C-alpha cells in the first residue's frame, strides 16, 4: 500500500519535473487548462496523502522506539531491501504511469499522441531523479517501519495470546470429543486425518 502510494506520488512529481524542464517556469500555467487541468489537484492530493503516510510511518517508528528500553546488544538491524532494486522497480512503474498518463491526456484532449521517443526521453528525464530520491527515502523507511510494526504487534500480543488460546482449546477439547460418536475422549489428541466410517458387508 505504502509503496503504491509512493509510486503514484513519485510519478506525479516526475511528471511535474519533466514539464518544468521542458517548458521552464511556465510549465504550471498550461497545466491548469485543457487535458492537464487535473494535474495540479492530483499532484497536490497524492503528495498530501504521501506526506500523511510518511508522518504516520515516522510516528509508528517513534512509538516502537519509545516503548523499547534499550536495543539489545547485537540485535539485528532492520533488513533493508536493496536500494537499487527499489529504485529500479520505482522507475519502471513511474515510467509506465507517465506513459499511460500522457497517452490518456492526449486522447482526452483530442490531441495527437506525442512521438514515442519524445515521451520516453522526457519520461526518463523526469522520473529517474525522482525514483532515486524516492528509493533512497523509502528503502530505510520501509525497513524501519516493518521492524517497528512487528515490534509493536509483538509487544501488544505477548501477554494475551498464549494463555487465552491454550485455555480456549482445552475448554473445547472435551466437548469436541463428546460430539464424535463412539470415540473415547482422548482420541482428539491423535494426529492424522479423521477416520472414515467403516462399511461392513451386508450379510444375507
Amino acid at each position, binding site marked *: 500500500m505504502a509503496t503504491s502510494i509512493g509510486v503514484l506520488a513519485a510519478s506525479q512529481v516526475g511528471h511535474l519535473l519533466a514539464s518544468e*524542464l*521542458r*517548458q*521552464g517556469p511556465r510549465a504550471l500555467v498550461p497545466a491548469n487548462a485543457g487535458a492537464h487541468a487535473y494535474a495540479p489537484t492530483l499532484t497536490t492530493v497524492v503528495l498530501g496523502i504521501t506526506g500523511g503516510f510518511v508522518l504516520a510511518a515516522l510516528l509508528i517508528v517513534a512509538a516502537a522506539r519509545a516503548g523499547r528500553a534499550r536495543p539489545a546488544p547485537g540485535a539485528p538491524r532492520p533488513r533493508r531491501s*536493496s536500494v*537499487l*532494486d527499489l*529504485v*529500479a*522497480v520505482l*522507475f*519502471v512503474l513511474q*515510467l509506465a504511469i507517465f506513459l499511460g498518463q500522457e497517452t490518456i491526456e492526449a486522447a482526452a484532449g483530442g490531441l495527437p499522441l506525442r*512521438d*514515442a*521517443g*519524445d515521451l*520516453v*526521453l*522526457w519520461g*526518463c*528525464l523526469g522520473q*529517474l531523479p525522482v*525514483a532515486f530520491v524516492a528509493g533512497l527515502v523509502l528503502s530505510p523507511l520501509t525497513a524501519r517501519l516493518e521492524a517497528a510494526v512487528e515490534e509493536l504487534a509483538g509487544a501488544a500480543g505477548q501477554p494475551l495470546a498464549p494463555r487465552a488460546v491454550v485455555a480456549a482449546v482445552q475448554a473445547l477439547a472435551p466437548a469436541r470429543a463428546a460430539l464424535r460418536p463412539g470415540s473415547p475422549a482422548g482420541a482428539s489428541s491423535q494426529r492424522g486425518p479423521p477416520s472414515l466410517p467403516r462399511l461392513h458387508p451386508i450379510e444375507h
Partner: protein
Amino acid sequence: MNLYLHAFGQRYDLPISLALYLYAAAGVVVISFVLVAVFASDRTGARAVRYPRLAVPFLLALGRSRVVRAITGAIGVLALLTVIVTGLFGAQSADRNPGNYLTWVYFWAGLVILTGLVGNLWTLLNPWAALYDLATLGRRRAPRLRLPATVGVWPAALVYLLFALLELASGVASHPMLIAILAVVYSIVTLAGMALFGRDVWLQSCEGFTVLFGVIGRFGPVETERDEDGRLLGVWLRPWGTGLLQRQRAGWDWVVFVILMLTSLAFDGIIATSAWQSFDEAMTPWVQGLGALGQPVVRTAGMLLLGTAFLLIFVAFVRLMLFFGGARSEELTTVTAFALTLVPIALVYNAAHNYSYLTVQSQNLIPLLADPLGRGWNLLPTAGYRPSLVLSAVSTVWFMQIILIVLGHVVAVYLAHLRAGERFRSAQRALLSQYPMLVLMVLYTMTSLWILAQPITQGG
C-alpha cells in the same frame, strides 16, 4: 566536411506501415520463445548450458605460431601508427583522412562485427600488447604494483564510456589531429599500465577495448584456453553465441559494461531521431551559459540518462525473473549471467546500425591509400576508385536491419532460456522466469527497430 557515420542521404517509403513491421518483428520473437520453450526447455542445472565444441589443431598451431602473432601484431601497430601519423600530419578534413576511417569505420564498427562473426581477433591485433611484447621480448615480468581485485573491469567500463562519449557527445570525433593526440596519450597510459601492473592484469581490467572484444568474442565461434602465462592450450569451434553461457565472475562492473555497450549503440541511433532534436532544443535554455560546451553536456547527460534507465529497467526485469523463477541463487550472480545474454542484441544492433556505413563508407579508404597524407602523392593506383553502391539500396538496408535485429533478439531469448535452466530449480520454474524476459525482448526489438527506422523511413 564531416564524416557522416550513418548517413543515407535518401529516404525510403515503407510499403506497409512501420507499426506493422514492429508488430511482426515482435511476433517473430514471441514465436521463437514458444519454439524454445517446446524444444529446449527440459534441461536444467549445468546440463542446460552445456554446448558442443570441436577441437581444431590447425587453429591451435596458427594461434601458437610466432610468425602469425608477429604479422597480426604488426598490422595492429601499423594501423595505430597510421591513425597517429595521418592525424598529426595528414589532411584535417574527416572524409580525406585515412585515420578517421580506420578508427570509426574499420575499428569501432567493423572489428566489433568481425569479432562476433569470427572470434576475438583483438588478442592478435592489439597494438599495445604487440608493442609491449616486443619491448619485453615476450617475457612475462613481475608487476611492480598490484591492482586491487575489487577494481574489476570498472576502469575498462570508464574507458569505454569515454570513448563512446568522444564519438557521440563531444562533437570533435571527426577531428583527425585530436584523435591522433588521444591515441598517443592512450598508448602511453596503456604501455605504462602494463609495465607497472602487469600486461594481462592491465589489459583485462583497464584496457577498455580488450574487455569489449573479450565480451564480443564470447559470441564468436572460436573458443580458446590459456594457461596462467597466457600460453595457448587449446582451440575449439563452438556454435555462435554459446560462449556467452560460460561461467562469469559476478559483478556490477560486468553488468554496467554490457549495459554501456547497449546504451552507446542505442544512443547513436537516438540522436538521429526527431525526438532527440526536440529534446535537444528544449534543453538548450538550460545550458546556454556553457557556450560551446552546451551540446556536449546535453548529449553526455542524455547518454548517462539512457544508460541508467536501461540498467534500472534490466534490474527490474531480473527481479521479476527471480520472483517467477523462485529465486535459488544470489541476485548479483543472476543479473550478471543474464546481462551477458544481451550481448547478441548489442552485436546485431551494431551491425544493423552501421550496415551502410560498413558497406559504402568503408570503401572510401581505398582511394585515400594512394595519398594518405593528402600531399598530392600517387603511391597506389587506387586514386580513381569509386565506392560500389550495390549493397546500399535503402530498401536493402531496411530489410537487412529487420533481419539482424530480429535474429539478435531470438538468439538472446534462446540464451536467456538456457541460462534460466541453469539458474532455476526446475524446467517449469525456468520457463516461468522467462516471461518477463520475453516482454523485455519484445520491447527491445520494437524500440531498436523504431530507432533504426527513423533516419531512413517516413514512418507509418
